[in-house]
């Protein structure tokens, strides 16, 4: 009986080995034979969050382009870095890719207490998916300042509290950036989430609402908030009548980007294939419309352009390091 089992085991092993060899061969021979198995898309944030929803909306279109299943896998924690670390540990074969979000990606290694060795060069960039512009808003019944110019002038003389959703997040950087450039006295107060700081602004405990366009849509529609400016180069489609900082008081660029990265060392041909698929999927009008409904702006950028966007953001944060106490 035991002998029999041994023989069967050996047989199975042998078949397995032969199978493996075959697989390796086909990959060697025809490099463009990608993909042949399901692709794992790591989302480093909890299921149901903004990044997760965006990924799940994109996955079906991606599957259509690539012809294989795209499996969204949530690996939340550590401000996204649990998932990023896992992504970096994966084989650079194109079958494991993942979302990276700013500014958490960048602050994750710039924050000295995190003691991380990685940086932007640790990843290969596939494509940017979403760009969520920053907004500056106040209570709808605010009398002290009704335009961005008035707000900045007021804040130069008087301290004003602003909302953030945590240390080193976009809204935090925006307030520090404006202080540095324009000599305003904004005091960022750290909250845990939008719901929490919206209540604090509406209750009059915090003066200025700094957040993302997506988070401001509902309270603005309900007439609770009034948007004074957006922190992008150009005006945003959601608020065509709202000026940018650039055209009023001076350049302040602040947004968060969510895109797809792969571990370093991925085959350029595989990367190219992925990029083409992502471009088609992201630019699908149906997908763009679905994302817009959630207040998310699809902003496709290919590999190098995407990396340049991240580098620009890294520079902004580098400049703010002294203000963050990260030396």
């Amino acid at each position: 009986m035991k002998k029999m089992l041994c023989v069967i085991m050996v047989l199975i092993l042998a078949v397995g080995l032969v199978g493996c060899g075959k697989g390796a061969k086909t990959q060697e021979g025809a490099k463009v034979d990608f993909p042949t198995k399901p692709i794992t898309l790591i989302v480093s944030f909890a299921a149901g969050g903004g990044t997760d929803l965006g990924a799940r909306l994109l996955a079906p279109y991606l599957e259509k382009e690539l012809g294989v299943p795209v499996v969204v896998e949530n690996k939340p924690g550590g401000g996204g870095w649990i998932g990023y670390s896992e992504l970096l540990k994966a084989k650079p074969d194109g079958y494991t890719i993942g979302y990276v979000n700013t500014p958490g990606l960048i602050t994750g290694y710039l924050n000295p207490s995190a003691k991380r060795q990685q940086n932007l060069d640790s990843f290969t960039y596939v494509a940017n998916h979403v760009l969520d512009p920053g907004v500056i808003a106040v209570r709808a019944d605010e009398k002290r300042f009704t335009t961005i110019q008035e707000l900045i002038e007021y804040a130069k003389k008087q301290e004003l509290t602003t909302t953030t959703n945590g240390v080193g997040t976009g809204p935090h950087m925006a307030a520090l950036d404006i202080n540095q450039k324009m000599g305003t006295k904004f005091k960022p107060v750290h909250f845990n989430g939008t719901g929490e700081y919206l209540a604090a602004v509406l209750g009059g405990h915090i003066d200025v609402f700094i957040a993302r366009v997506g988070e401001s849509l509902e309270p603005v529609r309900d007439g609770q908030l009034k948007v004074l400016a957006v922190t992008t180069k150009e005006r945003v489609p959601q608020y065509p009548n709202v000026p940018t900082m650039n055209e009023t008081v001076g350049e302040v660029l602040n947004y968060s980007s969510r895109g797809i990265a792969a571990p370093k060392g991925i085959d350029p041909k595989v990367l190219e294939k992925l990029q083409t698929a992502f471009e088609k999927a992201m630019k699908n009008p149906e997908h763009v419309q679905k994302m817009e409904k959630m207040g998310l702006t699809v902003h496709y950028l290919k590999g190098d352009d995407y990396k340049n966007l991240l580098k620009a953001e890294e520079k902004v944060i580098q400049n703010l390091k002294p203000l963050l106490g990260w030396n």
Partner: protein
Amino acid sequence: MESLGYLLQGFETAGTWANLLLCLIGVTFGMCVGVLPGLGPTAGTALLLPLTFGLPPVSAVIMLSGIYYGAMYGGTITSVLINTPGESASLMTCMDGYPMARQGRAGSALGIAAIGSFIGGILALLVLILVGPIVAKQALKFGPPEYFALVVVGLSLLIGLMGKSLLRGLIAALFGFALALIGMDPLTGTIRFAFGMEELEDGFEFVSIAMGLFGLSEIFITAEENLNAQAQKPPKIQNMLPRREEWGPSIKAILRGSGIGMILGLVPGTNSVIPTILSYTIEKKVAKDPSRFGKGAIEGVAGPETANNAYAGAALIPLFTLGIPSSPSIAILLGAFIMHGLTPGPTLLQKNPEFVWGVIASMFIGNLILLIMNLPLANVWARITMVPFKILLPNVLIIMILGAYSINNSMFDVGAMLAFGILGYFMKKVAFPLGPVLLAFVLGKIMETSLLKSLTIFSGSFIPFFQRPISATLLVVAFAIISISLYFAYKEKGIDADTEI
């Protein structure tokens, strides 16, 4: 009146087949954890929480809250029949419920408990409907300083009500605080006490702590004590209604119990045991013949059983309007809200009315289901106490491990749960209360962030805390609570509330 319209919409949400089914599952499971000694509502809710991840938020919370108030009903059965409280809120029910059962009146005891629980639950819901929206509007006045002051009140009550076990309670609470400090500093972003583990950069996962400390430790203890114990055969239940002359005092006890439960439900830092003890004490005081108590007085069952259900309903008011949990079970519900992307607080009623009112409506339905389950079907439930632990415990353990893994798809949380389970086991062995650990963990985080936010707003000064009317009042109340409990501690009195939550 506005509320009434919303409530009707809520019934529409709660009345779909899927949600009705989940409500039924929730209250049935709640009855089970209530009936089974060892598993309480906190452990039960924590246990099922990870299984709700795939559900829409409203359905998930309908089910989870069903477990919570369902357990309040279920705990009674074992208290009355075999003199073992199924969960701690039914502790006082043993005092007179079991003597009633020995006189062959188990039916009446269970009947009045079910009726009282139903009335208490429904009254608390009505108060929630009437008061909730008003509180929610006022809640915008609660800025960071007011949150801080409210949490201070809650924590002083937590300490004040510890009674004899003050030292152990304090150690437990401080341990909870220490756990809350793990993770990123909310003011500077410095990573604290993570020991180089990326998993700890966001702090411990609340669910793994809750499941470990409450669920797993209970399983260990039960396994140790009762694994081979012969299940007691419960007596037959008949005559569910009390005698005619008992109705008057019972109804009065039920109304008093409702009042006590509702008021205590509003206060953070309490637990569902305190209203039952208070209600029992009051019933004994107002009774014409206090000597009947302990020998089968029906008011002694009616009052406390009502109080714990009224408490369960009223505790939802601070949760829905301020996002502050009153008790460990409610803290787990809060965890469920956050996992499903909802922020409990002043904007919840405004932003997600269909959610809030759907859950409230489901609780009416759930209470009705429970009333039916408890009156005609009491005999069926009594038999659950006979399921051997040998079969029950391993199954529960499997569900827990799966649940812990599914929070973040990570083995780290499973390990954390196991570690907290072992820790909880030893804490129970040396009679450390576990409730304060969990409450201090949750309230500690709120306290730290709201303190830091306030100090940023006030530019580092503490004086403005006393210049804002709400926060000043609350801080004075906290001071009064501490002073009074110190006074009572000095007189060697105080409520003995160190029973497990």
